[in-house]
């Protein structure tokens, strides 16, 4: 009984603290911007109230299924983990460690004082959308997040990954790295080969009408060209996604920054 009371007090303290910081931040923001932010939908009187989602249940389900809670082993093993999250477990752990303390991802308290979703729910839902290509509200029942929230986090995840890792994992090789690539390819019989270049088209199903004519390929589909340079481990050395599908490989090569790099380095 005492523990329950202590827990309640603790929760109340957390909520009050979060509320005060929220209102302070709101006031600061409105002072800095010199205006009050425009109201976007949200909780207006007379509108549909938020659904009473049990965020703890969603987080508990994910933890129970893939990480194990209360000393029990997880329901699904390593294979299922990799199949569902589309990442090996160490890579997921690394991603989650870098995300879980970001202000945009960690657990917050909203204006009414209710604690919001856990970071693990946000990451899991965003990865589901990216991996399976499913609709945003598909994971609503499992992760207990609304479709618009998942949309928001699917938008934030690429920004975070690019900010954090693009300089490390998607950059041009320097002299030392180039030497390494050349050694590997020379062992395979092509000395001087910097990589294997190829283009492909990816269908853009919901493209805006204004861009439809520009992005129509020879089959009448609306798509976008992806140009990559990879090595034999499928490590992507160069990625260029921008050209409309009316371009052929030659035009994409002429438009891509790869050619500038080559000319710069040659």
């Amino acid at each position, binding site marked *: 009984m005492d523990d329950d009371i202590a827990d309640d007090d603790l929760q109340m303290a957390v909520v009050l603290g979060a509320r005060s910081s929220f209102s302070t931040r709101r006031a600061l923001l409105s002072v800095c911007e010199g205006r009050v932010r425009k109201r976007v939908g949200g909780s207006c009187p007379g509108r549909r109230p938020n659904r009473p989602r049990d965020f703890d249940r969603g987080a508990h389900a994910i933890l129970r299924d893939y990480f194990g809670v209360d000393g029990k082993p997880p329901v699904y093993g390593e294979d299922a983990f990799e199949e569902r999250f589309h990442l090996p477990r160490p890579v997921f752990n690394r991603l989650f460690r870098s995300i879980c303390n970001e202000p945009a991802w960690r657990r917050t308290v909203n204006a009414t004082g209710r604690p919001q979703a856990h970071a693990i729910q946000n990451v899991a839902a965003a990865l589901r959308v990216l991996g399976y290509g499913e609709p945003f509200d598909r994971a609503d029942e499992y992760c207990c997040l609304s479709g618009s929230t998942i*949309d928001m986090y699917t938008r934030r995840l690429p920004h975070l990954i690019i900010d954090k890792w693009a300089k490390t994992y998607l950059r041009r090789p320097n002299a*030392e790295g180039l030497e390494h690539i050349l050694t590997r390819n020379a062992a395979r019989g092509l000395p001087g080969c910097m990589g294997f270049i190829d283009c492909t088209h990816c269908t853009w199903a919901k493209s805006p009408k204004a861009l439809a004519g520009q992005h129509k390929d020879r089959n009448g589909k609306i798509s976008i060209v992806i140009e990559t340079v990879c090595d034999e*481990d499928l490590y992507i050395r160069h990625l260029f996604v921008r050209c409309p599908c009316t371009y052929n490989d030659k035009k994409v090569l002429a438009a891509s920054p790869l050619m500038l790099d080559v000319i710069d380095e040659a």
Partner: protein
Amino acid sequence: MLFYAADQGYPRYAIVAHTFSHPDTPRRLVYNRLQEAVRKHAERLYAVWWSRWFITKYPARYMTLPRLINTATAVAILHNIAVEHRRHGFVASTRMEAAAAVHGAGSGRHDGDDQGPSGDGMAFVKDDGPICGGVWGASAPLSDRKVNDGCGCEGAPVGTARYMRMAETETKNTHKRFSLLNDFTEHVWKDRGRLLAPYLRFSDVREMSERASGAEVVLR
């Protein structure tokens, strides 16, 4: 001269090494076979990528182009991290090792990563930076780039418009491409037994190893 291995859709530049479109000699056939075998990973990449990250195959949820580009880039980064995590288990490495073991040539792995397989959970202890330092190395400042000898660009300093003009001419030189391809054909023909071994069927490799002069038998 450095180059990229490509298919027939690319322009005839010196920076791009194609296959021969009508191979009429055994040497050109052998070169085509090797180039296609080595380059097939570029085709395989998309299959792997799209089976793993389906959103890139049909980005139906995205109305704006920047969002599509961002998503594709982020997915490529995640793919790269996952590849780095398990690069030693891939077909490309296991085939090379198997062929080298059968052939008795060298120690097997020709890659420079000597840190061993990183399949255990201890791999990502630090938060950023790749685990295989040999793959990337430290980033070099711009001023450290050297002008290649024999490139015809020695007259101009790096970064000037004149240098870039010369380098572009050099890169798109069609005659150099012919000499490059011919050199390659000779190079591959001389060492064809060893180079093509990873891409043959296993029975072929075994038969090859049973004979003493294996290198002469292949592709006669």
